[in-house]
């Protein structure tokens, strides 16, 4: 059975060019980039080339790119490192309610050290309103973090507008672009952000290759202290194969981004149109238009996400879900709840995220295979029986 992988938000496959570029750095080019001898210098050159390539994807200077081991690490570094560096100016943070755990939990850590956080709500489409961010700011605010796009509901946030407000008040602005980078065009200068997180495993690069963009001249305290790697902002011997892989993936993403997005958008819209046409009581989550080009997310009423995920998996289709049962803590997704969907309905979360080689046939297969799965699970569901009996609206 051919697998149909529609879980881009979890991981993307590595491009063959990326793997090829990485291989020598597992073999003959094993040197330490900080060594002054030729074996080190050849590796340093590769790391710096990757830095240039990664920067180019987001219109940043090479010196503004700090390599990290994951998007989560980049988010931790941004939130903790920037807030700590500005501590003398104030101790208040503003985040959106739909941020990734790595941002929210970093802020929680800071709260233990005397910081306070305001979470800005989102509207039913998952959009953060710049006016709400402005209202949340105080004289004491030192950092605002609002993501570029959400991996669970796909919504793209008005980051440029929020960044302008932050800049006007001399408040640092970070955006978590892990879900967006490589899939939507990003220009850090046009956005006006001070920091931006990205991860190569979201655009056909390797896991372990990620970065934080930090605007020139912005002070940050490192999470990992050590040597002079990454300009002293991230100690530790560089993960050279992952960094090289990230660079190549960034280079390819920059060139192919528009083509990938245009193709994905057509198939995404096919799902967004097709599923509600074939299944009743299914709701699109996130923004209907202003969303990631490869992202279609729904809640299906009366059934639960994990059961859908497992059923699709048995038919060869890989998706994700934000239902409570799919999380280890059995808690419904804070993102879906933030959009105003109730706890019970949030359990029916299912997320389809497309790859660059997803085909129209794949989407047709989903539209064929998914409705009977929903049907089967609904026939088992006491909630659906109740709904049919009471015919509530």
């Amino acid at each position: 059975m051919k697998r149909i992988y529609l879980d881009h938000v979890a991981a993307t496959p590595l491009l063959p060019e990326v793997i090829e570029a990485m291989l020598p750095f597992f073999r003959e080019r094993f040197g330490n980039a900080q060594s002054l001898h030729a074996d080190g210098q050849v590796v340093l050159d590769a790391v710096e080339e990757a830095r240039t390539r990664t920067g180019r994807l987001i219109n940043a200077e090479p010196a503004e790119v700090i390599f990290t081991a994951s998007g989560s690490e980049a988010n931790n570094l941004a939130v903790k490192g920037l807030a700590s560096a500005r501590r003398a100016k104030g101790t208040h943070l503003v985040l959106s309610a739909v941020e990734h755990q790595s941002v929210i939990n970093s802020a929680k850590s800071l709260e233990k050290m005397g910081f306070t956080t305001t979470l800005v709500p989102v509207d039913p489409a998952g959009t953060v309103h710049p006016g709400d961010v402005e209202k949340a700011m105080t004289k004491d605010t030192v950092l605002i973090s609002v993501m570029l796009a959400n991996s669970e509901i796909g919504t793209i946030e008005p980051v440029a507008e929020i960044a302008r407000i932050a800049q006007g008040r001399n408040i640092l602005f970070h955006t978590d672009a892990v879900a967006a980078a490589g899939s939507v065009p990003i220009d850090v200068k046009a956005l006006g952000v001070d920091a931006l997180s990205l991860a190569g495993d979201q655009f056909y690069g390797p896991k372990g290759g990620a970065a934080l963009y930090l605007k020139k001249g912005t002070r940050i305290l490192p999470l990992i202290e050590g040597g002079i790697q990454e300009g002293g902002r991230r100690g530790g011997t560089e993960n050279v194969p992952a960094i090289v892989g990230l660079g190549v993936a960034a280079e390819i993403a920059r060139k192919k981004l528009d083509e990938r997005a245009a193709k994905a958008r057509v198939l995404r819209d096919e799902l967004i149109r097709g599923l509600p046409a074939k299944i009743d009581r299914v709701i699109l989550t996130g923004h209907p238009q202003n969303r990631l080009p490869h992202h279609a997310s729904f809640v299906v009423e009366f059934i639960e996400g994990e059961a859908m995920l497992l059923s699709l998996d048995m038919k060869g289709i890989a998706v994700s879900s934000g239902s409570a049962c799919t999380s280890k803590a059995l808690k419904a997704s804070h993102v879906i709840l933030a959009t105003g969907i109730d706890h019970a309905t949030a359990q029916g979360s299912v997320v389809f995220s497309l790859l660059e080689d997803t085909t129209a046939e794949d989407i047709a297969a989903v539209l064929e295979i998914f409705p009977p799965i929903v049907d089967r699970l609904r026939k088992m569901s006491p909630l659906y029986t109740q709904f049919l009996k009471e015919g509530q609206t």
Partner: protein
Amino acid sequence: MIYSEKVMDHFSNPRNVGVIADADGVGQVGNPVCGDMMTFYIKVKDDHLTDVKFQTFGCGAAIAVSSMVSEMAIGKTLAEAMAITNDKVAEELGGLPKNKMHCSNLGADALHEAIKNYQNKLMGVSKESSAGAQAGHEEHEEGCCCPYCDGPVDGLEDVCACRHCDIELVECPECGNYTNKADASCVSCGARMTK
């Protein structure tokens, strides 16, 4: 794979799904907000369960548990059925992930509720149930880890929390393991938590 073959079998081919229109007893537990809800229907003849059907809203484990409970219960006497515990259900299913143990508890509970409903209808009001007391005999683990994510637990004495899961934790009086303060039953042993 987080689930055993047995669980996946019962999830993909659940036995005894449905509604019994003229059921002798009906039991419903859980609620959709928590992620699981089960309704059990029973038919009783000569103190034996002649038919059991269920409907379940929930994850793979919840569906498999319901199916297994129905299979274990059919043909049993009421007392035998009341003695079906969550541990036995989980065992029959070849084990369940730690954070899904509460599903097995719900399945047994829903069956027991249906039996009690039958007995109450038969005898009037009697609230007493014959069996079903659960012994908390999960292996006691050092209470240092969040039972959901195995991460570290923050806090001292009475206020414990897992920051990763963003939940408050309390020690279960039955097995001593941490469980979500907001939940009605212990995630490890299934014992009911008194608020």
